[in-house]
């Protein structure tokens, strides 16, 4: 009998009986909950100088009130084209002495600022200058990324798919998930998996149970796969739980609306012709795949180093290194490779990265190639691990 199902059951038992696994999972979920509720503990006010030179404080709001006014203002703008009329209203509001008027068009003014930060000084803005500036922003960012002519031609076609004028959509939940949550989840998953899975094989050596396991019929082949399957399910489940917390809180507070809003509404310089909801789903899918990769990597390290703490240190060290060290874009290949580390790829900022990967005569975006690369790495780490385990 191969007993794979039974072996998987016992591997689950071993993993879940560790206090460290429960404690770290609880801490990570609490961090996620806190990051979704932190806004309630904030308060918002604004100081400005009136015509007589007096400093005036306006708009004292609690976090909860601020959420309410954000929702109200965004709903008021929902469905309106970002055209001459709306841009004019937003600009008028900016110069209005009424604080509530500024706030009402905050979302539009933020977008105008993202596209052309000096728009207030350069004689205002209208629909034509806004969309011209937007196109200039998209393509000038490609200069700084050292794109080839072929890549530019690829993006030219993609950008043409983005309909203008943009239609403003209420999308606060999706915006918050994309802007604030995806990277947090990616980091928390790495942290959790490094703690829980780096001991998957090494703990057997520490507990001296390895010699009992290795001399049994199923102790080599099936035990290896049972451990790998349990680790991968744990990794994917962790990512799902954290996304579940994030989706739950954001949809509860802001509602589900806005899946189809244009990505450029919150990431103006991005050339990707996708909606905000699609962007969230892309990062969600990549997080699940990265969770599989991180799980098999952590278990491979566990085998290779035969030490729980050493494996954990390598993963956490890599996480901080890739998070804080940025390679300049003029090292085109190196910096692009650097961008494929999970904590670099799973971030809203990657939607600004228009560098492509030529592969078998086709161009792939970073996200598309990330799927190919992560899948290949998963297969390699499982294979290397198998060889190591059989030694």
């Amino acid at each position, binding site marked *: *009998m*191969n*007993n794979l199902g*039974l*072996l998987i059951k*016992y591997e689950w*038992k*071993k993993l879940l*009986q560790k206090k460290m696994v429960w404690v770290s999972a609880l801490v990570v979920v609490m961090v996620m909950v806190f990051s979704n509720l932190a806004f309630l503990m904030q308060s918002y006010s604004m100081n400005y100088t009136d015509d007589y030179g007096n400093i005036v404080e306006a708009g004292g709001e609690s976090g909860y009130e601020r959420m309410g006014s954000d929702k109200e203002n965004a709903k008021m703008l929902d469905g309106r084209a970002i055209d001459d009329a709306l841009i004019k209203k937003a600009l008028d509001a900016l110069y209005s002495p009424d604080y509530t008027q500024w706030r009402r068009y905050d979302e539009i003014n933020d977008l105008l600022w993202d596209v052309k930060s000096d728009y207030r000084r350069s004689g205002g803005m209208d629909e034509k200058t806004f969309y011209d500036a937007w196109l200039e922003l998209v393509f000038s960012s490609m200069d700084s990324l050292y794109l080839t002519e072929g890549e530019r031609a690829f993006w030219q076609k993609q950008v043409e798919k983005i309909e203008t004028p943009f239609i403003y959509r209420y999308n606060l939940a999706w915006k918050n998930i994309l802007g604030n949550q995806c990277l947090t989840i990616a980091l928390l998953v790495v942290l959790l998996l490094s703690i829980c899975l780096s001991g998957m094989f090494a703990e057997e050596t*520490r*507990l*001296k*149970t*390895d*010699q*009992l*396991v*290795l*001399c*049994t*019929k*199923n*102790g*080599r*082949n099936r*035990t290896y796969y049972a451990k790998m399957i349990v680790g991968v399910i744990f990794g994917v489940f962790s990512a799902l739980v954290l996304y579940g917390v994030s989706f739950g809180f954001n949809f509860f507070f802001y509602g589900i609306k806005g899946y189809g809003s244009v990505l450029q509404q919150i990431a103006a310089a991005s050339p990707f012709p996708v909606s905000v909801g699609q962007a969230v789903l892309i990062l969600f899918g990549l997080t699940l795949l990265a969770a599989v990769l991180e799980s098999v990597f952590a278990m491979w390290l566990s085998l290779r180093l035969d030490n729980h703490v050493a494996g954990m240190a390598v993963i956490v060290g890599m996480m901080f290194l890739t998070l804080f060290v940025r390679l300049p874009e003029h090292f085109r290949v190196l910096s692009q490779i650097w961008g494929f580390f999970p904590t670099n790829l799973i971030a809203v900022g990657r939607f600004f990265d228009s560098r492509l990967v030529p592969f078998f005569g086709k161009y792939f975006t970073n996200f598309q190639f990330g799927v190919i690369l992560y899948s290949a790495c998963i297969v390699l780490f499982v294979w290397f691990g198998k060889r190591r385990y059989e*030694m």
Partner: protein
Amino acid sequence: MELRADRVTKRYGSKIAVDGITLNLSKGVHGLLGANGAGKTTLMRMLCGILHPTTGDISLGSMDVSTEEYRSVLGYLPQDFGYFPDFTGMDFLLYMGALKGLPKSYAKKRGRELAELVFLKDEMAKKIKTYSGGMRQRLGIAQAFLNEPEILILDEPTAGLDPKERVRFRNMIEEYGKEHIVLLSTHIVSDIEHIADDVLMIKNGKLIFQGIWNEEKGDLEQFYLKQFEEGAANE
């Protein structure tokens, strides 16, 4: 069928732990004697397929040591081994049963029989972390017998057992050796004198004696001690 080890060597860098040992073990109890660090455990770990020999071959009939087939007829009790502290005694035996490829129902039935045999029947629902050293050793003995192995390799099996348990377990091994191949390593020479059909003595990784020990050859313990005194004098 015979368990054959053909010129088996294990090197760690420049250190030779086991040096060209050749063995043919048939049914019966084979006592393995040797000082600490002589290479007994390394040899047994190779016979169990845990360590790969640097050179040489190990097989049972046509089954190579690296095959599942070989491991499925093997029972091993390591000298110093660990447990999953939060498993109950029965969980541990069922897990070992799953590892040994036994059907769950059979592993359960056999686990209960063995628990009774090693006097752990009433302790099987308790977590292993609550067991005493002797209870853990008895649980280890039970797992080694779980699959009714053709080859039973026991490394210091009576360590931690009280004298009464030791004698009882010694008899159990003797009985089992009538139909199976048992390799027993211990420092307790009298245990080997009592139950071993033949004696293997290992020193500095080399087999220095293999054969039947009888009264005509004198006292085994004296011979054993002499070998190590000579070793110490030469060093």
